[in-house]
């Protein structure tokens, strides 16, 4: 368990933890650039951003929020299980976390598919290009033109919507990969109680990804929740 270049386990775990916290700092700055850019435009173009936000799927986002918050709980329970040497508890909580995170991604997939059908896309040609079956009154482009909004700025919101949720989704996928790796490590008996900090480091990352979602939710989904079509 102890790597050759460390003096003792305490030093090793403290280094791993500090390293992970520093990595989280880079993640915060990474998303911070996006949040900063989004905030500028949100401030400049409130009407268009609220209008475009009203086309996002609040129901799926709400369920997803619950899934992620619950997954943070199970992830924390996994640390406790690892620390106590409770192998079956560790399995259970890791797999539960994986299932909740996986559920988030599946719902996300349905959400994207629906957006796609309804033409909620930022491209010049794809914007408002809904499937024939979709009610024309619910077309994002028609509605924007009727309301006298600048479609360019509506599309700007959609750019951010896809980039922010997309990059967040990639982070969830990486997190799911790490959880699977932890399951494999547990199976290989490589996570004895004195090595629980491995689980802790993954959990730190998972919590950050969870926390970022808690900012994305109001920025992207709640901004236009008061507008009804």
């Amino acid at each position: 368990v102890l790597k050759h270049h460390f003096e003792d386990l305490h030093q090793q775990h403290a280094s791993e933890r500090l390293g992970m916290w520093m990595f989280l700092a880079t993640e915060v700055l990474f998303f911070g650039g996006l949040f900063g850019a989004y905030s500028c435009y949100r401030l400049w173009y409130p009407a268009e951003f609220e209008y475009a936000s009203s086309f996002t799927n609040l129901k799926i986002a709400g369920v997803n929020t619950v899934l992620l918050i619950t997954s943070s709980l199970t992830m924390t329970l996994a640390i406790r299980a690892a620390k106590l040497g409770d192998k079956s508890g560790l399995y259970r909580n890791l797999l539960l976390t994986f299932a909740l995170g996986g559920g988030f991604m599946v719902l996300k997939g349905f959400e994207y598919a629906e957006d796609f059908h309804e033409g909620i896309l930022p491209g010049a040609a794809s914007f408002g290009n809904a499937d024939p079956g979709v009610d024309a009154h619910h077309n994002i482009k028609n509605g924007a033109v009727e309301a006298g909004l600048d479609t360019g700025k509506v599309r700007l919101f959609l750019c951010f919507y896809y980039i922010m949720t997309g990059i967040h989704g990639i982070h969830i996928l990486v997190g799911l990969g790490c959880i699977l790796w932890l399951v494999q490590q547990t199976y290989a008996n490589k996570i004895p109680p004195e090595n629980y900090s491995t689980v802790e480091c993954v959990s730190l990352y998972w919590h950050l990804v969870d926390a970022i979602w808690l900012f994305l939710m109001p920025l992207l989904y709640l901004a236009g929740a008061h507008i009804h079509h």
Partner: protein
Amino acid sequence: MSTATVQGTPGLSPVPPEPPPATPNYLNNSSGIWSWLTTVDHKRIGILYLISITVFFLAGGVAAGIVRLNLLSPEGAIVNEDTYNRSFTAHGVLMLFFFLIPSIPAVLGNFLIPMMIGAKDLAFPKLNLASWYVFMIGAVFGVWAILAGGIDTGWTLYPPYSTRASQTNVVPGVIGVFITGFSSIMTGLNIMVTIHKMRAPGMTWGRLPLFVWSLYATSLIQLLGTPVIAITLTLIGVERVAGVGIFDPELGGDPLLFQHLFWFYSHPAVYIMIVPGMGVISEVVTCFSRKNIFGYHAVAWSSMGIAVVGFLLWAHHMFVAGISYYSALLFSFLSMLVAVPSAIKVFNWTGTLYRGSITFQAPMLFALGFLVLFVIGGLTGLFLATLGTDIHLHDTYFVVAHFHFVMVGGMVMGYFAGLHFWWPKMTGRMYSDWWSRVAAAIIIVGFFFTFVPQFILGYHGMPRRYPNYPAEFQVYNVMSTAGASILGIGYLLPAFYLTLSLFFGEKASANPWSATGLEWVSPSPPPPFNFDEEHMPVVVAGPYEYALGIDQLGRGLPESPGTVDDPSSRAGGHTGPAGPMQKETEVVG
């Protein structure tokens, strides 16, 4: 090299006895290309980086050569305008992202940080190796972008040109820089955690060598700045590929937002490039003055000051881009503020030199060159931080000259000073004293000839990045190109004598410069885990006790400077006691 380690195992020696095994060091403890490509030894990874960035330095130098040669004539001497644009972009991208940013942190930092703080390795050895692979993958994209036709946007990649107009390989270039950024983050994170958690007993923060402090500050910038350029480049890439408009005014986007995000990283990035060089200078100036550093705490904290203030002045690149009057005032003030910690360093180095017993070996010549060139570069920076003069000088050769005085006159000189200072430690060989001094002199002279005319050109209004210019500017451009040729020869010389030293150089002792740091305690080249595993270092003294003549273990220093360091010469003890220091002298730390 210590004689005690060159012994066969007693009692087991067959008859006739085998020749004594070579002392294991990090270079010979395993061999073959595969042992290098899979190594997790920070010293070997440092060498991998050294080889890689040397290649990029040469490639960037070739691009600079094309630019300078083309400027020999007012109409462009050798290439057309498009190729000219691609050449200066290639020069900028290669030199900044693939040479300067990794230069000292990834080569010397990698090699020296664990040794200086008394650790066996960096905190995350595998991450360290991964950082080199990530760097090389990014480099493959970058080189592909350049070879497959190049990029013509300049290294700043400003939209809308980079997103709508340019027909060149912006996307692969952006991917390359994006990926390389991760290697920079990995190196910074590794170094920071190592400094926090891996210090030897007795190695307090107040006893850290100033090189370590400077890399701590650098790593902080790498950690907090690089992710912002990553997301900015992602946005540029998405805008270009998907045809959407995040920075496109037609869709309500704002190109100025790109400039803000870009410079939020890219201005601090110049401190990623210069602060490590300052760390090297602190080590070299002290050692070759045979004096304790003047103002240790001031120099250490000024590194941190640069790192923090450096994050707050990015918009001075945008004074003429249309930012508001009040933010321009604020950023002008903050830009001047960062001159304060830089000046603190220069004053303290000068204070160290004052009445020192100075000797002029190659590392010291490079360091003195750094001092002069950096001061000129720094002072001309104040002209650009001043709002009124910046309107006149913005985007002229004055900026180019200022930037090169700091980056080439500063950082590259610092890198060469460091490379020459620690070369005996890294390779176990001494290089030619004469040729290295000649090279330092040629580089300094060539540098002045190259860049002083550019100050004049810029002051008279020659814009940067233009392939053509009025005929009356030709004399200065010819001078500059002539200087660049001298500079080129100066840079090629070390490639020869350093390479030759590997085969013909005198064997280096453990401590050829009679310096005080822990890295000089180990043999040259060091063993795989840096120190004798049975006797890991215990630090009892401050980092620069040249006055007492003791290293950080409290042992006396060898004769300075020399190439022989066997225990018998040290026992002569002209400057201090051998063995652990006595309690009553410990107050020096």
